[in-house]
C-alpha cells in the first residue's frame, strides 16, 4: 500500500487546553489533520487523548484553544452541529444503541445528515438509506446480523458497529477513540482491514487514538505522540518509532 | 418605609422556612442524586402529625378505619402554662416518626430501588409524584379535608417598634431557623460525622475507598431531611393552617428556592430560600396579593434560562 496524502488541512486544532481541578489533562495541543490521511494519536494511559477528543468534538468545553473545520471555527458549536458538519467520532467506551437493530443503529447515525428536520418527519423510515447502510453492513461482514439487536452482538462486533456508525455518514474527519481496544486478535485484523479500506477506497480521513502500536503504526500516515497532556512530538511512524523520547515516555512511565 | 420593613421581615421569616426546606431538598440531591417531587407533602405530613399527636384540643384523631384504636383521640393534652406544651410534645413525637417514614422508609423503598448510579432520574421523579399524590389524598381522606388551624409555638404577640408591626411568630421563626441552620453548619463542618457525610456527598467513590460508610451517610442525610421538614412543617403551618393540599405550593417554592440559589451548594439553597420568601412577600405587597407566588416562579424560569446552575451555584464540568 502506498501512503499518499495531499496537503490541504481539513481540521486545524490550535492550543487546546483543559484542566480538571488541579489536573492539567490537556495542555496546549495543536496539530493539523490533512485530507485523506490517517493521523494516529498515541501516548500513555491518562495523558489526555480522550479528553482532547472530548474537547474537539464538543463534549467538553476546553479552557482554551480552537478547532477549525475547513477554515470555519467550530469551537462554539454543539456536538450535534459539529457532527452534522462532518466531525464524527467514537468513544473509548463502547457506545451503541443496544435496544435497536444493527441496521437502525446505522440509520440513526446517517439520518441527521439527510434533509431538514421537517423533511425527515415526512420521509419514510428507511429514508432511502437502505442501500447505503446495507452496503456498509456488507463490507463490515455483518449482513447476517443486520436485524439483530445491537445489544446481542459480541463485543468485537459491537466495536466494529460503533466504528461503522462514525463512518456511515462519510464525515470529513472521523475521530476514533481506540477502535481496536479490547478486540480479540481475529477481529483485530478485520478492523484494521476495514479502516484501511475506507481510507484507501473512500478517502476517509481519520484521527485514531490507539494503544496497540502495531495496529496504529501499520495504519497511520502520521503520528502525534502525547505525554502528560502535551504534544511530545509529531512525525511519520518511522520517525516516531526511532525517537528516543517516545521510548522514554513509554518505558519511563512503567 | 414602615410597610417595606414589615413586608421584608415577614418575607425573611417565610424565607427562613423555605431555606431550611430547600436545604433538605438539596441535601438529598447532593448525596443521593434524588429529586423528591413529594417534598411539599414531606412538610405537610409532619405538620398534620404534630397536630394529631400533640395539641391541647386535638382536632385530628386516628382514622376510623384502623381497627381497635380507630376514632380515638390521641393528642397529648397538657395544661397550658404559657408555653404550647402540647404542640412541642407533638413535635417531639413526630420527629422519630418522620425520620422513620420520610427518611428510612422513603430511602429503602423508593430511592434505593429506583436510582441506579449513572441512570436516569425520571423513574424516581415519577414515583415521588405518585408518593405526593398518595400522601396528599391519604391525609384528605383519612384525616381531614378542611384546613385545620395550627397554633404558633411563638404565640400571637405583636410589637410595634417605630410603627413597624412585627409579629412574635416572624421573629421566632427567623431565630429558630437561624439556630437550625447554624447547628447544621456546625454539624457538617465541625463534627467528625458531619465531615464524613460531606465527603460522601462530594465524592462517593473516594469516600468509600477511605472507609467511610457511604450508604449510612446517605441515610443520615435522609434523616436530617426528615428533621428539617418536620421543623418546617411546625413553623410554616400557623400561617397557612394544616391542610392536605399545602404540599403543592410548599414543595414548588422549596425547589424554586433550591434551584434559584443553586442546587449544588447548601449555601445556595439557603440564600435561595430567603430570596424566594422576600420576593414572594414583595410581589404580594407591591404587585398584587393575588400574584404573591408569581414573583418567585417567574424568577425560577428566568434563572433556568440564564443561569441553570443557580445564582450562587457554580457551573461545573460533569464529574464522570
Amino acid at each position, binding site marked *: 500500500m502506498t501512503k499518499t496524502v495531499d496537503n490541504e488541512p481539513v481540521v486545524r486544532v490550535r492550543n487546546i487546553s483543559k484542566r480538571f481541578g488541579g489536573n492539567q489533562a490537556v495542555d496546549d495541543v495543536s496539530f493539523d489533520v490533512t485530507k485523506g490521511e490517517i493521523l494516529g494519536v498515541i501516548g500513555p494511559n491518562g495523558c489526555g487523548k480522550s479528553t482532547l477528543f472530548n474537547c474537539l468534538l464538543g463534549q467538553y468545553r476546553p479552557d482554551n484553544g480552537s478547532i477549525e473545520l475547513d477554515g470555519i471555527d467550530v469551537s462554539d458549536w*454543539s456536538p450535534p452541529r459539529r457532527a452534522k458538519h462532518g466531525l464524527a467520532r467514537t468513544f473509548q467506551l463502547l457506545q451503541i444503541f443496544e435496544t435497536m437493530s444493527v441496521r437502525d443503529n446505522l440509520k440513526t447515525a446517517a439520518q441527521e445528515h439527510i434533509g431538514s428536520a421537517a423533511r425527515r418527519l415526512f*420521509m419514510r423510515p428507511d429514508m432511502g438509506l437502505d442501500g447505503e447502510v446495507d452496503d456498509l453492513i456488507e463490507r463490515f461482514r455483518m449482513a447476517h446480523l443486520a436485524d439483530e439487536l445491537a445489544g446481542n452482538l459480541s463485543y468485537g462486533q459491537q466495536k466494529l458497529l460503533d466504528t461503522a456508525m462514525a463512518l456511515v455518514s462519510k464525515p470529513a474527519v472521523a475521530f476514533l477513540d481506540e477502535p481496536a481496544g479490547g478486540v480479540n486478535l481475529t477481529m483485530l485484523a478485520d478492523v484494521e482491514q476495514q479502516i484501511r479500506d475506507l481510507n484507501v477506497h473512500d478517502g476517509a480521513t481519520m484521527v485514531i487514538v490507539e494503544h496497540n502500536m502495531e495496529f496504529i503504526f501499520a495504519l497511520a500516515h502520521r503520528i502525534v505522540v502525547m505525554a502528560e497532556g502535551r504534544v511530545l512530538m509529531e512525525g511519520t511512524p518511522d520517525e516516531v518509532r526511532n525517537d528516543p523520547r517516545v521510548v522514554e515516555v513509554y518505558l519511563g512511565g512503567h | 418605609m414602615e410597610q417595606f420593613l414589615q413586608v421584608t421581615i415577614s418575607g425573611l421569616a417565610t424565607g427562613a422556612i423555605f431555606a431550611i426546606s430547600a436545604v433538605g431538598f438539596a441535601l438529598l440531591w447532593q448525596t443521593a442524586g434524588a429529586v423528591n417531587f413529594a417534598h411539599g407533602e414531606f412538610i405537610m405530613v409532619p405538620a398534620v402529625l404534630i397536630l394529631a399527636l400533640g395539641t391541647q384540643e386535638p382536632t385530628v384523631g386516628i382514622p376510623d378505619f384502623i381497627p381497635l384504636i380507630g376514632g380515638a383521640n390521641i393528642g397529648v393534652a397538657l395544661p397550658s402554662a404559657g408555653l404550647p406544651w402540647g404542640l412541642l410534645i407533638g413535635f417531639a413525637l413526630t420527629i422519630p416518626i418522620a425520620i422513620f417514614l420520610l427518611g428510612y422508609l422513603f430511602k429503602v423503598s423508593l430511592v434505593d430501588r429506583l436510582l441506579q448510579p449513572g441512570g436516569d432520574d425520571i423513574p424516581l421523579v415519577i414515583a415521588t409524584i405518585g408518593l405526593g399524590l398518595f400522601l396528599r389524598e391519604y391525609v384528605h381522606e383519612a384525616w381531614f379535608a378542611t384546613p385545620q388551624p395550627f397554633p404558633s409555638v411563638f404565640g400571637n404577640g405583636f410589637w410595634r417598634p417605630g410603627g413597624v408591626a412585627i409579629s412574635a411568630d416572624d421573629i421566632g421563626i427567623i431565630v429558630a431557623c437561624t439556630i437550625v441552620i447554624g447547628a447544621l453548619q456546625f454539624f457538617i463542618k465541625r463534627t467528625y460525622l458531619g465531615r464524613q457525610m460531606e465527603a460522601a456527598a462530594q465524592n462517593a467513590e473516594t469516600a468509600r475507598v477511605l472507609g467511610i460508610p457511604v450508604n449510612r451517610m446517605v441515610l443520615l442525610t435522609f434523616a436530617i431531611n426528615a428533621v428539617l421538614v418536620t421543623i418546617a412543617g411546625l413553623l410554616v403551618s400557623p400561617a397557612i393552617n394544616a391542610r392536605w393540599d399545602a404540599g403543592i405550593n410548599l414543595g414548588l417554592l422549596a425547589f424554586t428556592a433550591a434551584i434559584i440559589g443553586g442546587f449544588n451548594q447548601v449555601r445556595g439553597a439557603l440564600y435561595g430560600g430567603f430570596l424566594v420568601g422576600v420576593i414572594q412577600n414583595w410581589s404580594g405587597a407591591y404587585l398584587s396579593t393575588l400574584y404573591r407566588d408569581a414573583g418567585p416562579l417567574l424568577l425560577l424560569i428566568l434563572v*433556568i434560562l440564564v443561569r441553570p446552575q443557580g445564582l450562587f451555584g457554580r457551573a461545573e464540568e460533569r464529574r464522570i
Partner: protein
Amino acid sequence: MAESVNVPQSKAADGSDALDQPDFENRRDKIAIVDRGRLSPSLIALVSMLGAAVAVMPVGRAGFDGVIGLWFLSVLLLVGVNVAVPLDTRNGQMVRWISTATFVAFMMLFPIGKSGATMTDFGLFAIFGAVVVGMNLTQGFAGQVSLAPAAFLGIGSYTSVLLDMGEEVTVAGVTVDLPDLPFLATIPIAIVVCMLLSVLIGFPALRVRGPWLAFVTLAFSLLVFLVLNNEDGLTRGSRGIRVLRNDFEIFGIDMLPTHNFYYAGLFYLFFSLTVVWWIVRSPWGRALKAIRDNSGRASSLGVDVRNYTLLGFAVGSGLAGGAGALYARQVEYIEPRSYFVNQTIDFFLATVAGGLGTLAGPLIGGSLITLVADYLRFTGDWYRVWFGLFVMVMMVVAPEGLAGSFNRFRAWVQKRVDS
C-alpha cells in the same frame, strides 16, 4: 454544606457529556423501551375490553347492554387469538388490522342505545385520552416529564372559548375586541398557541439534562392557574365561563346531543393517535428512541437531543391544547380549578399506568382516569390514594406500565408457544 460538591449525575451546567469513563454509562433507564411503534392490536383489544367491562358494570349506571356483552366476548376472543398468533407473520398482520378495525368500529358504534350520562363519560374518555396520548409522546417517547398538560388543556379551553364568544376582554388595562370565530377554527389556534408556549418554556428547561422540564412546567402550571383565576377581565376569574353547546354545528351536524359530541372527541382521539404514530414511525421516532437509549451517543452522531425533545414536548402540549377546546364544550362550563395541578396529576397517572412509550398505553390510562374513576366515585376520593400507591409500586415492579406488562406477557406466551 460542601462548597465544592460536584454535581451528581446528569446535572452538568454546560451540558457536557463525555462517555469515556466506565462509571458513567449514560444509559437511560429502560423505562420506555417497550416501543412497539405501532398500534398493538391486543392492547387495543384490552382497552376496549376495559371500556366494555366498565360499560356493563352496573355500579351507578344504567345496566347491562346486550350489544356490549357480545362485543365483550368477541374482544376476549381477539385477545386470545392475539396472544397465540405471532405478530410478524402474515396472519399476525391480519389479526392486527382486524382488531384495530374492530376497535374503531366499536368506538364508532358505541353510542347506540347508551344513555347521555354514559356518553358524557365516554366523551371525556376520548378527550382526556387524547391529552394522555400527547403526554405519552413527551414522557414515553421523548423521555421528559411535563407537569403542565392540565395547564395546556386550560389554555386550549380558554383560547378556544374566548375566540368563539366574540366579546371584549381587558388585560392589564388594555381592552381588546375578540373575534367570533367558528368553533372548528379555534381548535388549530388552541393547538398552535400551546405549542408556542411550550417551546418558550421548554427551550430554557431543556438546555441541560435532568428533570428541569418537570420543575419548569410545574411552575408554569401554577402561573397559568394564577392568571386564569385572577385576570377577571379576560377569564372572568373563579366565576368561570358558561359554554353553550347548543349554538354550534360541525359540518351541519348539531353538536348538542351528547352522542353527537362524542364523535368530535373520538375523532380528535384518533387524530392524536395518528399524529403520534406518524412521528414515532418516521425518522424522528428513531431519533427519539436513540436519545432514550443513549443520548450522549445520539448527540455525537448529529441527533439534536434538545430539539427533538423540545418538539416532542411541544407536540404533546399542542395535543392537550386542542383537547381543551373540545373539553370546554363537553363540560359546558370552564373554571380555573379544572385546570389545576390535580388534573395534571390525573393525566400523569394515566400516562404512567397505561404504559410509557406505547401507543395503546394512553388509552388504557385514559380509561382509568375517566371511566374507571367515575365508577369509583363511591369510594369518595379513596381511589386516588390507591392510584398514588399504584404508581409507586408500578415504578418499582413494572416500570413499563400496564401495556408494557401486557406486551411482556405476550412475549412470554410466544416463547412458550415457540418452544
